[in-house]
C-alpha cells in the first residue's frame, strides 16, 4: 500500500526513468541466460546437409575425431566432454577421457555406453557415409563435419558453437582465426612467385593431396602451389616420376603417422632421380600431424608455420629447421638441434611428452625490443605441435665483437622470452659462459626468444649499429663503422 502510493506520487520523469531501468534489467536478465540455455531447442544444418535438432544444452558430448575434440574444447565445453576417439590428444585434459576405439567406423554400441546427448564426428567418406547412418540409430543428435578448406573449418566451429548454444564464443574464435588467416593471405596473395610444394603423406606408395583437401587449401593460402592442384580429389596416388617431373621447391612431410619417417636424408637416399630443387636446397620440412592434419582451430597455427616455411622472406623468416622429437632417444639421452646461420644457437631437448616435430626459425623482425635492451643477432621462434611437457635448454652464441659493437654489457646478457599476454619480453634464468661465448637458459614453453643485453651508456649514441668486418692484411684488426649521434659516420678499431 505504501509503495503504490509512493509510486503514484512520483514525478512522471522519475517514473519513466524507473520503467526504463526496469526494462533494461529485465532484458539483461533474459539475455544473460542466453549463453546457458535460453534459445534451445536449436536446429542446425551440418556439413552433410543433415538437419540436426538439439533439444537442450548438451551435457554429455562425445567427439569422434581429434578436430571435433579440439573445436569442442576451444568453445569452452571441455567439462561436458565424456568421450573422445583414440587419436585425440589435445589439449592435455583429454588424455583422461574415455575412448572410442574406431574412428573410421565408430561402433554405435560403444558410443551408447557413454550415454551422450550430442555426438560430433568427422566423415571420411562424405555424403552417403554409412557410418553416419549407423550412428544415427542411436537417436542422439549427431553433427557431422566434412571440411575441405580452412573456411570450412571456420564453418564447423560456428556449426558446433551454434548447436551447443556457444555461438558467441564460436564467433569470437572464428574472428580471431580469420584475422590471422587474412594476415597471411594479404602477404602471400600478391606474390608473383609461388614455390611448388609437394605434400607427401606416404611413401613408397605415394599419397599426396589434391585440390579437394584442406592441406591443399592451406598450401595455397600460405603462398605455395600444390603440384597436384589439377587433381580434384582429396588425395592422389601419383607415380614417382610425376612428383619428380613437377620439380617441387619445397617438400612437406608429416610427423605422427606411424610407420612414416621421411626427412631430408631419407628422401635423398631415394636416388638421384629425387634431385629436385627441394632436395638441392634442403627445403624438406616435417610438420606435426596435429598442426596440418586436423581441421580444427590449430590448423591456423599450421597455416602460419607453413607460410613461414614457404615464403620466409614475406614473414621475415631467415631460416627454418625441423627436428623430429624421438621419445625413445629422450629416455636415455638428449636431442640436439644446431643452427649455424645467421645465428649460432643450439637447442638440447631434455624432455618431451610426445613424438612430433619441432620447428626452429630465425626471424628478422619480431616483437619490438624494449628501449633499454639491445638485440644480439636475430629473433628465434620455436614451434611445436605438441608443446606440452617439452623442456629444453637454449644456447645462443654471441661474439665479443658483436656485443662490443652494440655496446652491450656482457654480464647483462640474458635470453628473453616474449610474453604474449602481457606483450613484454621477460628474461629467463640465463647463464653466461664467457669462455665459450654463449648464453644458456632452460625453457619449457614455446614463443619468441631473443638474446638481449643492456647497453652501456657511452659517448657515442648509436641509433643503429652496422657492423662490417674487415680484415686487413696480416693484422686481423676489426673495424667497426658507427653512426654518431650527430649523424656523422666514423670507423672505430676494436
Amino acid at each position, binding site marked *: 500500500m505504501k509503495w503504490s502510493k509512493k509510486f503514484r506520487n512520483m514525478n512522471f520523469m522519475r517514473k519513466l526513468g524507473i520503467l526504463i531501468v526496469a526494462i533494461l534489467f529485465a532484458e539483461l536478465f533474459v539475455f544473460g541466460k542466453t549463453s546457458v540455455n535460453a534459445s534451445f531447442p536449436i536446429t542446425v544444418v551440418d556439413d552433410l546437409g543433415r538437419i540436426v535438432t538439439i533439444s537442450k544444452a548438451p551435457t554429455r558430448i562425445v567427439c569422434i575425431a581429434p578436430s571435433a575434440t579440439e573445436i569442442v574444447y576451444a568453445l569452452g565445453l571441455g567439462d561436458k566432454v565424456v568421450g573422445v576417439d583414440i587419436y585425440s590428444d589435445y589439449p592435455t585434459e583429454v588424455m583422461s577421457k574415455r575412448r572410442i576405439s*574406431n574412428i*573410421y567406423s565408430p561402433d554405435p554400441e560403444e558410443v551408447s555406453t557413454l550415454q551422450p546427448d550430442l555426438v560430433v564426428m568427422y566423415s571420411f567418406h562424405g555424403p552417403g557415409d554409412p557410418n553416419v547412418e549407423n550412428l544415427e540409430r542411436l537417436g542422439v543428435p549427431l553433427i557431422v563435419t566434412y571440411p575441405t578448406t580452412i573456411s570450412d573449418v571456420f564453418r564447423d566451429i560456428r556449426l558446433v558453437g551454434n548447436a551447443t548454444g556457444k555461438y558467441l564464443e564460436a564467433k569470437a574464435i572464428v574472428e580471431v582465426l580469420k584475422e590471422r588467416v587474412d594476415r597471411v593471405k594479404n602477404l602471400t596473395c600478391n606474390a608473383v612467385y609461388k614455390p611448388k610444394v609437394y605434400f607427401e603423406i*606416404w611413401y*613408397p*606408395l*605415394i*599419397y599426396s593431396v589434391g585440390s579437394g583437401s584442406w592441406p591443399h587449401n592451406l598450401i595455397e593460402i600460405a603462398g605455395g602451389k600444390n603440384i*597436384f592442384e*589439377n*587433381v580434384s580429389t582429396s588425395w*592422389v*596416388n*601419383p*607415380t*614417382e*616420376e*610425376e612428383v*619428380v*617431373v*613437377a620439380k617441387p621447391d619445397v617438400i612437406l612431410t608429416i610427423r605422427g*603417422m*606411424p*610407420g612414416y619417417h621421411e626427412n631430408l636424408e631419407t628422401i635423398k637416399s631415394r*636416388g*638421384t*632421380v*629425387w*634431385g629436385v630443387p627441394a632436395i638441392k636446397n634442403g627445403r624438406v620440412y616435417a610438420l606435426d600431424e596435429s598442426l596440418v592434419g586436423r581441421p580444427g582451430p590449430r590448423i591456423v597455427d599450421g597455416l602460419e608455420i607453413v607460410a613461414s616455411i614457404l615464403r620466409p622472406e614475406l614473414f621475415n623468416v631467415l631460416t627454418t629447421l625441423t627436428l623430429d622429437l624421438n621419445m625413445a632417444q629422450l629416455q636415455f639421452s638428449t636431442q640436439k638441434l644446431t643452427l649455424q646461420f645467421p645465428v649460432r644457437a643450439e637447442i638440447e631437448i631434455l624432455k618431451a611428452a610426445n613424438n612430433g616435430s619441432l620447428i626452429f626459425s630465425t626471424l628478422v623482425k619480431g616483437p619490438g625490443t624494449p628501449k633499454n635492451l639491445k638485440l644480439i643477432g636475430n629473433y628465434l621462434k620455436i614451434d611445436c605441435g605438441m608443446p606440452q611437457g617439452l623442456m629444453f635448454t637454449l644456447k645462443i652464441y654471441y661474439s665479443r665483437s658483436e656485443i662490443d659493437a652494440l655496446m652491450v654489457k656482457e654480464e647483462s646478457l640474458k635470453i628473453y622470452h616474449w610474453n604474449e599476454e602481457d606483450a613484454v619480453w621477460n628474461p629467463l634464468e640465463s647463464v653466461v659462459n664467457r669462455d665459450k661465448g654463449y648464453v644458456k637458459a632452460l625453457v619449457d614453453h614455446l614463443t619468441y626468444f631473443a638474446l638481449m643485453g643492456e647497453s652501456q651508456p657511452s659517448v657515442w649514441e648509436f641509433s643503429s649499429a652496422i657492423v662490417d668486418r674487415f680484415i686487413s692484411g696480416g693484422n686481423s684488426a676489426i673495424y667497426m663503422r658507427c653512426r654518431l649521434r650527430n649523424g656523422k659516420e666514423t670507423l672505430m678499431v676494436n
Partner: protein
Amino acid sequence: MEKSQVEIAYLKKFAKWSLILVALSVILLFSMGAATTIGPMQIPLDRALKIILHQIPLVDNLIPVQWESIEEAVIIQLRLPRVLSAVVVGVALSVAGTAFQCLFRNPMADPYVLGVASGAGFGAALAMVLRLGFSVFGAIYAIPIMASMGAISTVFLVYGIARTGTELPVLRLLLAGIAVSSFFSALISVMMALAGEDLHVVYMWLLGGFSLSRWEYLYVAAPTVAVGFIILYAFARDFNIILLGEEQAKQLGVEVEKIKKMVLIIASVVTAVAVSISGIIGFVGLIVPHIMRILVGPDHRILLPSSALAGASILVLCDTIARTVIRPAALPTGIITTMLGCPFFIYLLKRSGKIRI
C-alpha cells in the same frame, strides 16, 4: 628319297617356330622401348636408348653424355625397373598359367589356383598392417619378403594336403588349392578389417601394380623366373604327352609323378615371386596361354616361350596404360589387365569356336 609335302612342312615347323619367337621378341622389345619413352617427362626414344646403353660397362665409353642427369635418373631409376618388373611378372604368370593348365588338364586353371596369391596377399597385408621393417632392410623389403613367405607356405600346405603316398592326384591338388586359397583370403579380409588407416595401402597393393618397382626386387625376381622358365621349357615335350592323360603318358615313358611335383614347385615359386613384387595381377596367367594356343598351337615347345613373350608384352602395355590414363594418378595395373583381357578373350573365343587344350 622323295619327300612329301607333309614331311617338308613338318621339318619346317621348327623353323616356323623360331620365326614366331623372333617376331614376339621384336614386339616385346618394341613395347619395352615405347614404355620407357612414355611418361610425364618428355624423353625421346633415341635419347632413352642411349641412356640405357650407357649403363652397360663396355659400351659406355662409346656414347657421349648428351642428356641431363635428371633424365638419366628418371629412365634408370624409375622407368626401367618398372618396365623390367612388368616383363618379369608377365613371363612368370604366363608360364605358370600354361604349366598349370597342362598339369590339371583344365582350361580354367591359372597361376593362383593353388592359393599362392592369397598366401602372398596375406603376407603382404601382415607386413603392411604390422608395419614390419627388418632392421637391415627397411619396410620396402618387408612387403616382398613377407609376401614370398606367405606364398611358399601355401604351397607347402597344399602339397601336404594333396599328397597320398608317393602320388600327387591332380583332383586333390585342385581341391586343396581351393580350400587353402579361401582360407588365406579370409585372413586377408581380417587384416583389412583390422587395418584402420592402413586399409587403403593394403587394398591398393592387392589390386596389383608396379608403383613400388625397384632394382633390388629385380635382382631376386629376374633370375628366379628365368631359371624357372628354363626348367619348365626343358620338359615341354613331356607336357604335350601328359595332355593325353597320366596313364598314357606313363606308358610312353614320361615320369608323370616326378614332373607333377616339379611343375607344382617351380610354377608356384615363380608365381610367388611375381606376386610379391607386383601384387595380385589377374587374367594374364589365365588368358595369355589360351590366346597363344589359338595362335601358335598346343605344342608346349612353342607355347611356353610364346606365352612368356606375349605375357610380358601385354603386361608392359597394360602397365603403361595404367600410369597414363588418369595422370597424375596411377591406376593399379591389375585393373587394366582384367578390363582389357576379358573382352579380348571373348572376341578370340567367338572367332575360334572353342577353348581347347
